[in-house]
Structures are given as structure tokens and as C-alpha cells.
């Protein structure tokens, strides 16, 4: 039988709240949670791992040349509740990422959303609301 996250998971998600970072592994204090930044680049690797998934993106610098950014996403459990999986982001794919930047100015941050170039939301901001039949779409916000 395929894995089902089920009603209780959805209810638990609803109780945790729409922003849903039930973080236990580490403090978020290294991120500037009051601000978001946006950049567009090419996926180098989507690391579907615990305690966090990580998105590595290669970006063209304004003056030429390439640089790499690292974005921390959520745990596999939380991403699965958002209907995100290990194929959601693929190497070579161009993505636009919004993120809470690292407060020390390094290349990276806490991932907030990831969008494909056609506007499809690959990783959304919140957790799915309960949907009859359990058919919450993959990170897609309501129109």
C-alpha cells in the first residue's frame, strides 16, 4: 500500500499552522527571518535528506562568472506533508528562490519558496489545507 499521510497528519499540520516550521533540529537565529531575498539560478543538486533538505543553486554573478548558493529547506517529513518529493527539483532546472538570507552575508539562507520558470510553485510557503480526498497539490497555493 502506498504511503498515506492521512487525516491525522493533515490535522496535525493544521494545528501546527500554515507556516508550519516545527523545527527541532537547530535554531533559526542564523537567518534573517524578517527579510526575504530572491534569486534565479540553475539547480545543481536537490538533496532530499534529513535533518534538512538542501537546494544547491548555481547563479551567474552580475559581473560575470558563477557562484553557488545553498538553501536549507525542511525535513523530509514536513516536505512530504507539502507533497514535495525527491523529484520536485531536478539538476539543470532553472528556479527562482525566495529565502531568508544568512545574517552573516554568506551565499545562502532558509528557503521560503521555489518556483519554476513557468511560474509553477515547486515548494510553497505553507502546508496543505485539508482537502476532501486528500488531493492537496504539490506545493501549489490557491489561485
Amino acid at each position, binding site marked *: *500500500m502506498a*504511503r*498515506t*499521510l*492521512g*487525516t*491525522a*497528519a493533515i*490535522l*496535525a499540520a493544521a*494545528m*501546527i*499552522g500554515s*507556516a*508550519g*516550521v*516545527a*523545527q*527541532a*533540529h*537547530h*535554531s*533559526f*537565529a*542564523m*537567518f*534573517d*527571518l524578517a527579510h526575504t531575498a530572491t534569486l534565479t539560478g540553475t539547480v545543481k543538486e536537490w*538533496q532530499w*535528506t*534529513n*535533518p*534538512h*533538505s*538542501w537546494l*544547491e543553486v548555481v547563479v551567474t554573478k552580475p559581473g560575470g562568472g558563477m557562484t*553557488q*548558493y*545553498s538553501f*536549507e529547506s525542511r*525535513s*523530509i*517529513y514536513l516536505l*512530504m506533508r507539502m507533497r514535495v518529493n525527491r523529484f520536485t527539483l531536478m539538476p539543470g532546472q532553472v528556479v527562482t528562490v525566495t529565502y531568508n538570507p*544568512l*545574517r*552573516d552575508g*554568506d*551565499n*545562502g539562507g532558509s528557503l521560503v519558496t521555489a518556483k519554476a520558470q513557468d511560474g509553477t510553485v515547486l515548494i510553497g510557503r505553507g502546508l496543505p489545507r485539508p482537502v476532501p480526498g486528500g488531493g492537496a497539490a504539490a506545493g501549489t497555493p490557491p489561485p
Partner: protein
Amino acid sequence: MNRNLLFGCLAAASLAATGAATAATPEGTTPQTRLYGAPDQPNISGIWFPGNIQRPAPNGRGTGFGSLAPLWGIGDPPLKGAYLKLYEKYTAAANAGKPYADTASECKALGVPRVLFGPDPMEIIQTPGQITMIQETGHEVRRIYTDGRAQATDPDPWFDGHNVGHWEGNVLVVDVVGLRADTAMDAAETPHSDALHVTERWILKGPNDIEVDAVASDPKAFTHPWTAKYYWQRGDADYEMLEDVCEDNNRNITNPDGTQSTILGK
């Protein structure tokens, strides 16, 4: 019987049970399911999802750790002396963007009593004489002995301590001592000492709902016992617990000064 049919029957039974439970669920009433081999005990084996998680308090407690950092206990921590100073140091560092590491960021364990709010699902395996709680987070295992043994008198300190429990009707009463002093109470890195003593009442409000009333006493670190209330809800029987190996991709390293940094570009 195929699995779908079995599941349907279980669902029907569960509905019936829920209906029955609605009529009488206060503390001390008889639940529908008893433990095989120990019919005097309610059976809480299964998958449970955490309910409420307390968030940063209006007074700003925990805010520097992230707006959704889960906190332990009701109200402010009743810290005193050196432990209050330690807490203030951790909070100031977090507010400055240089949080200290803890046993969770180091992928060691959350420890009791931080595991009381998950944050991920928990599997309970109840057998006569023992209740085993397996957190999805980091595969953390707690063994609560319900075979009547006495609490340890001089235990080695462990992340999840030494747990003995007994049933009082529909309430599982758990006593925990022998806890390591280096674990944090919560994501705000609230400290405690090795004298921490936790008592918990796991109140079966219905077949699918547990309320945990916990009290943390620490004569070295707290001015008075600190209470907390948590909720767990039974998940679908076919939920498969995820593998969660914390060291698989842990990029939070602990610096020599005790703060943590993030490894980039890995």
C-alpha cells in the same frame, strides 16, 4: 481478508469506538481497547501525531531563535542563578544571529522532556511490562518500564533518562530521573541541571486522543516546578514512519566557542 476490507472493518470499529467514547471519556473511564496480555491496561500502541506546540511568548521569549521555535512549558521558565544567566547568554547570542549549539543541533538527541512535543510523529509499542516510544525525529527511543520495578537510585545520566511508569485507570503516570544536564528543554535552549525530575500524566481522553500533563522539577536550576501540557492524536494505522538519520546531512557544526555555524556549498 484483504487489507482494504480489513481496514474498512477497523475504520467501522473505530467509528463505533469513537461514538462510544464521546459518551464517556473523562479521566478514569474504561477505554475500548485493552492490551493483550495485560487486560488491566489501555492499549496505546500505534502512531501518534503531536498536537499543540507552544510558540514564542508575547514577551519575546524565544523570538531570536526563529518565529516558530517550539518552547517548553507554560509561561516563562522559572530559572534562577547561574542557569538564568546561561539562558540570558543563549538568548542574547540568538538575537545577535550566533546561536549556541545544543544536543539537537549536534544530532545527538532531543532528550526528555523536549521529546514531549515531537515535533514529528511517534510510534508507541506497548507490551506487558514496557511502553516503548520511538520518535520519528532521529529514531529517538524511550523505554518506560511498567513492570513495577523501582526507580533507579543512582542512575547514569542519559538523554532520555530512566523511565518507570504505571497505569491509574486511563492515565499512564511516568517518572523520569537520570537526565543529562547538557540537553535543552526546548528550541530556545532553556537549560536545566542534572537534578531535573520529570513526572508525566498521559491521560487517555479517548481512544485517539492523549493529553500529557508534565511537571519539570529542578531544585538546582528552577525556583519552582514548571508545568506543561501537550496533546497527541492517533494517526492512521497504515502510516509508515519515515527514516530519519540526523547525521545524514547535518550541516550545523559546533564552533570551539560553543556557537553553531552552517556549512554551505556541500
